[in-house]
Structures are given as structure tokens and as C-alpha cells.
């Protein structure tokens, strides 16, 4: 039996900056993960449904628009509603330190802010994926 870690990389919300998400997607690929890349302007509903169909282990979202406090918890709840409560949800982007405790309380496993290395992200996923 061979297990591959599958990660959905998504850009929710309305900002059009996906360079960071692409860099992360590429790094995860090189770490041996299967990365399902869904591109820009995804709604929480689209992200949760794609995660279900792709049976991913991890949902990684990048957001720069400031809507993280609304969107990240919504994705977590939608995943739970679909029976995907074992998915590791992580976020990244320009996110104020002061918002992070609330995001973690809402079920976001980790939040990576500017300066985080791809190595840190990969290690976190490897250690925490279920």
C-alpha cells in the first residue's frame, strides 16, 4: 500500500495575487505531495467541495485580502458538514498576529505569515497530517 499526502492549495476571496500560493504548491510538489491546485477566487463552498471530491489530507489556503477571519473558519465548518473532519486546514498570507488565536480556536491548525519558509510549512504538514 502506498500513501501520498494530498493537499488542496486554494486562493479564496477576491485578491488576485497567487504567486505565493504557486511557490508553496511547487515546494509541496518537490516534497513529494500531490498538490491539487484550484487557482484564484474560490468560494469556501467550492474549496470544501473540491476537498471532498479529491479526498485531500490537507487544505492550504492563501489569502491577502483581509477576509481570512470570515473565510478560513467557514471552510473548516463546511468540511465538517461533509464528514471531512480529519482534514488538516492551514492558512497563509498577510494576516495580523492578533487574528491568529481566533483562527486557531476556529480549527485552523496553523497560520503562516510573511517570512515563513516553505520548509517550515512542509515540516508542519508532515508532522500533523492525519
Amino acid at each position, binding site marked *: 500500500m502506498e500513501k501520498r499526502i494530498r493537499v488542496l492549495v486554494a486562493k479564496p476571496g477576491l485578491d488576485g495575487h497567487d504567486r505565493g500560493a504557486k511557490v508553496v*504548491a*511547487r515546494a509541496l510538489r518537490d516534497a513529494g505531495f*500531490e498538490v491539487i491546485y484550484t487557482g484564484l477566487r474560490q468560494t469556501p463552498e467550492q474549496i470544501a467541495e473540491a476537498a471532498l471530491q*479529491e*479526498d485531500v489530507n490537507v487544505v492550504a489556503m492563501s489569502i491577502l485580502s483581509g477576509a481570512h477571519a470570515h473565510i478560513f473558519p467557514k471552510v473548516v465548518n463546511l468540511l465538517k458538514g461533509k464528514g471531512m473532519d480529519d482534514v488538516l486546514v492551514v492558512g497563509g498570507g498577510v494576516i495580523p498576529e492578533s487574528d491568529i488565536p481566533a483562527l486557531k480556536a476556529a480549527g485552523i491548525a496553523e497560520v503562516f505569515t510573511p517570512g515563513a519558509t516553505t520548509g517550515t510549512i512542509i515540516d508542519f504538514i508532515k508532522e500533523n497530517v492525519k
Partner: protein
Amino acid sequence: MDIAQELLNGSKLALSRAITAIENEHDDAVDIMKKLYPHTGNAFVFGITGPPGAGKSTLTDKLAREYRLMGKTVGIIAIDPTSPFSGGAILGDRIRMNDLTLDEGVFIRSMGTRGSLGGLSRKTADAVKAMDAFGKDIIFIETVGVGQSEVDIVKAADTTMVVLVPGLGDDIQAIKAGILEIGDVFAINKADHEGADRLNVELNMMLDLGGMTKDWRPPIKQVVANQGQGVKELIITIEEHYAHLKTTGQLTTRRTERTKNEMLDILKNGIGTYITNHITASGQFDQYVKDVEDRRIDPYSVVNDLLKGMLK
């Protein structure tokens, strides 16, 4: 949960988990397949292949939408290459199909090739069966971007469509063997680009050279997938081919051939596993290797002896 039963009851989560079990060769994958098998054989399996960037995903998206308007449910298996170095993959076909994600009648699954070289992943056929048992009317298989010789799709699909775009080469490319031989239907995408008419002429010449003895001369349709141009006409052609397969009995012939190939594959895998577990795992095999290396015996005689022992 009983994945197979839940899948048959219509659970998307179960379908998704079943495909994961199949892909990862979980211990319970064979049991799941055993339970699903009686419920397969109803879907129309449609293969889409062509070079990278030809517009396979975009065209799949447009065709799937059109089939949804016709009231059909759709499964899509989109395959992208796995890195031979890291084992990782970027599966990016969904980007072109995001609007289908929330359609209840569509299920899209991306798969990495995981070492398979024929344009599909090794477990594509079983993933198709899972979607078939789930009740999808039509199942699209989108291959990786292919070059000239990745032709496994013909073994997996009822109807195969080759998508081409202008500007990739002259008419010598068109008479070479390989993917141009496997199209039941051809689509020239990006037909608004320069060179589309020339490609059309060259393809027609190629097809006329070989088409005299066949009862189906593959038609060529020009489309502009990202604008939806020509998609309705293309579906009519695809459906015509499917009807042709049915009326001529070729559908049965193709599916019989597929069943035969699949059974042979399962048998070969079983024998392969037996060899790994019973022969190469033993110390005696290593001794044989040493003997062969020292030229005390030749490998052909050794294999003969081993086979005799295995088959008695």
C-alpha cells in the same frame, strides 16, 4: 463505514474514499471493487487526449456542461504527471473546471500518473468503475498531455477523442504512428488561430489515406473551447460515434477486449506478488543470483526450474 455500500447509496464521500483506497492499494481496495463490480458497465466512458496545452481540460469543462444540460450526470478523471524525482505532482486540471465543482451532478477527481507511462495512471480503470457504480452516465478520462506514443487511453475508453491545436508541426507529423491512430473523433481546438485550416487539411489527408477499409472515418471538428464555439456540434459527433459503436457491435468487442486485458493484468499482478513473496524473498533466490553471476549456470535455466516448481 462500509465504503462500497455507502457509495452505492449515493455518498460522495464514500466515492471519494473508495478512489483513494483504489489508488493507494489499501488492503480493503479489492473488497470494495468486488462489491462494486456487479454495478458497473452502464456508463459511457469517453477519453480525451492530446498534447500539453491543447485545451483538454477546457474542452472537458465545456463538454461536461453541455452533457449536464442534456440531463446526464458526469464523472471526470483528470490525470497529470507525477514527478519521477520527488513522487509529487501538481494536479491543475481542476482550474479549468471550477464552475462545475458545485454542480451536484458532477464529480471530478484528479490523479497523478504515479510512474505509469501510457498517459493514464495505473488505477484509472478502477476509478472509472467506482464512478460507474456510483451511477454516472458519462465518465470523462482526461489523459496527461501526451506526445506521440502514450496510447493507453484506447484500452480504457469506449470513444477516444484526440485534441490538436495548430502550429505544432508539418504534415509529416500527421502521418507518424501513435496518437493520431487512436482518435475516433478529432477536435482542432483554438481554431481561431492561424494554421487551423491547414491542420484540418493535413489531418483529412492523413485520415483519408487510412480510412478506406474502415467503417468509421474519424470526423474532424473545429472548436474554440474557451468560448464554447463548436462544442454542441462536437457532442453530436461524439454521440454519433457512440451510437455507431452500439449498432455495429463494436462496443461489445471493445469492452470484451478491455475485460480480457484487465483480467490478464490482475493475473499478472497476482503472479508478480507471488514471485515477490515466495521466490525472490527466499535465500535460495540470492544463491541462484550468485551462481548466475559466477557463470556456473545461466539465468534461462534457473527461471525454467523456478517456473516448474511454481506451476506443479
